[in-house]
């Protein structure tokens, strides 16, 4: 999904930050949905009825019931507990996975935008090269190179994900650097790093943050889940939504809920984050006018 956002969808976000967030129904709803999921993930040990990895080969593939709220899987593990602990894993990995490309992309994007010239030329060609690969082609190949596991997911997503941030920040800086306050700072003899860090970045970073929180975070969750589905994600027996969906697929004709329950969890999480993104975008837009 990188190109979807990576090639600069017209997410025209101005840099002003004002307006009352609680008047934004989308934002409030998004915060509530996402907050609920995060809270459930954090409180997993309290909410879970069982150990998520405890097997019971005598009680496999049970339907939802009083003892197991959402039933059990092929190894007799409690689906509800695995769902909660899976949220912990997937949300944590997605959040960390967003951080690296955010930092790298912001740094390189501001260099490209501020200095222009050959720096810009080289960096933007690098961006073009990364964008020439379909997202999953690169991710899968990189995970093969690095071996499956959490670390590989971070590295693979960082290598690909920085591109979007670099583009967003570069575009914003290109505009912002012609503003008077920047020109004034330059003629005042302030060192370059200071101009970028203190004057430019705070004014242009909001759009990157919105992108990170909504679009990129969703994209990373999808990538993690897809890798889990392909057997290249978080190793078992750790619960993760992707591997839960994959494991349930064998039973799709008899116990369809095994795949659908974690699937719905993914969709709801994406929905919550999208709402936040939409709300923030609206907020910024209204703050400008």
């Amino acid at each position, binding site marked *: 999904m990188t190109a979807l956002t990576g090639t600069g969808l017209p997410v025209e976000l101005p840099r002003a930050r004002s307006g009352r967030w609680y008047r934004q129904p989308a934002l409030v709803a998004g915060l509530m949905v996402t907050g609920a999921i995060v809270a459930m993930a954090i409180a997993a040990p309290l909410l879970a009825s069982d150990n998520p990895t405890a097997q019971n080969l005598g009680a496999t593939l049970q339907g939802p019931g009083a003892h197991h709220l959402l039933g059990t899987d092929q190894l007799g593990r409690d689906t509800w507990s695995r769902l909660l602990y899976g949220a912990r894993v997937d949300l944590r990995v997605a959040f960390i996975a967003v951080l690296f490309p955010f930092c790298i992309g912001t740094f390189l994007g501001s260099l490209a935008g501020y200095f222009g010239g050959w720096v810009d030329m080289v960096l933007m060609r690098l961006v*073009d*090269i990364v964008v020439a690969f379909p997202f999953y082609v690169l991710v899968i190949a990189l995970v*093969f*190179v690095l071996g499956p596991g959490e670390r590989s997911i971070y590295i693979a997503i960082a290598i690909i994900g920085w591109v979007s941030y670099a583009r967003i920040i570069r575009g914003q800086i290109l505009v912002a650097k012609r503003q008077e306050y920047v020109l004034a700072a330059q003629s005042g003899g302030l060192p370059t790093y200071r101009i970028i860090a203190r004057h430019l970045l705070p004014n242009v970073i909001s759009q990157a943050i919105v992108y990170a929180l909504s679009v990129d975070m969703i994209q990373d*969750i999808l990538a993690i889940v897809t890798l889990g589905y392909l057997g290249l994600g978080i190793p078992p027996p750790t619960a993760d939504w992707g591997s839960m*969906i994959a494991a349930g*697929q064998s039973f799709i004709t008899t116990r369809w809920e095994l795949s659908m329950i974690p699937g719905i969890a*993914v969709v709801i*999480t994406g929905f919550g984050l*999208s709402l936040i993104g939409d709300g923030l975008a609206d907020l910024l837009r209204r703050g400008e006018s």
Partner: protein
Amino acid sequence: MSFVIHRLLLLIPVAVGVTIIVFFMIHLIPGDPARTILGIHATAPAIAELHREWGLNRPLAAQYWLFLNRLFHGNLGQSLFYQVPARTLIFGRLPVTLWLIIYSVVLAIVISVPLAMVAASRKDGARDQAVRAIPLVGLGMPQFLTGIVLIYLFALRVHAFPVGGYGSGIGGHLRSMFLPSLTVAIGLAPVIIRSLRVSMIEVLGSDYITTARAKGVRGGRLLARHVLRNAVIPAVTVLGINIGFLIGGTLIVENVFAIPGIGQLMIQSIFARDFPVVQGVTLVFGVIVVVVNLLTDVAYTLLDPRVRFGR
């Protein structure tokens, strides 16, 4: 036109970069194609013999040079697994993937245009809010999950479509490829709906439409004849920009639906460490993405002279 030439020149370093990454990344992957072929009977001499046969015993730089040389002559090398030219394999399967991409785009447009029109016809109305919620849900759907749900509903429960495969003949393709294309389209439609809705609302607010309204053009006719025509250009641009997403989607969808396209060939070849085929497929993907992006940029620039890229 100097802009187009400029863009084309910029493609040269990108193309070289793509070949370098493709080549070295695939060779960095641990594992050995000889073991794929020899299985459990792989002995050191047999592996060495195959490596000699395939030229894998040479230094990587020399292998890269040979790869470039061949590429220059339109030769993608010989598939290690099947022992036939990689080009034959790839171009034999390319039509399948192109079918999937085009079918998906058509379905995505068929889904998006009416929805966007409904939404834009009364901004912030109930229908608009409902349509705006679609992308929020759609963007969070993993494609493999959409695929599984569609298979479950329309192939397993209601036997309306085959569960997979490519089918034979135009009718067979249309039927077999419907669910896979719908899967990709469901991922793509949210993006188109978003952009189409915004641009339609913009067009609706423009002087041009006010004039048309004053002339008595109303309702569906206004939307179809005047608004859609003007709003569709940005939507097509969005499609072009998303070609990478489309191709990435086919990779997953071809696997879920067992469609013998180049995405499936690619995954199969990564597993088998069939280097020439992986290189070939990635290059074909890269060329499609770069060319479509270029065309999109050019179209966009020609349509809107204010935009100048790279300045």
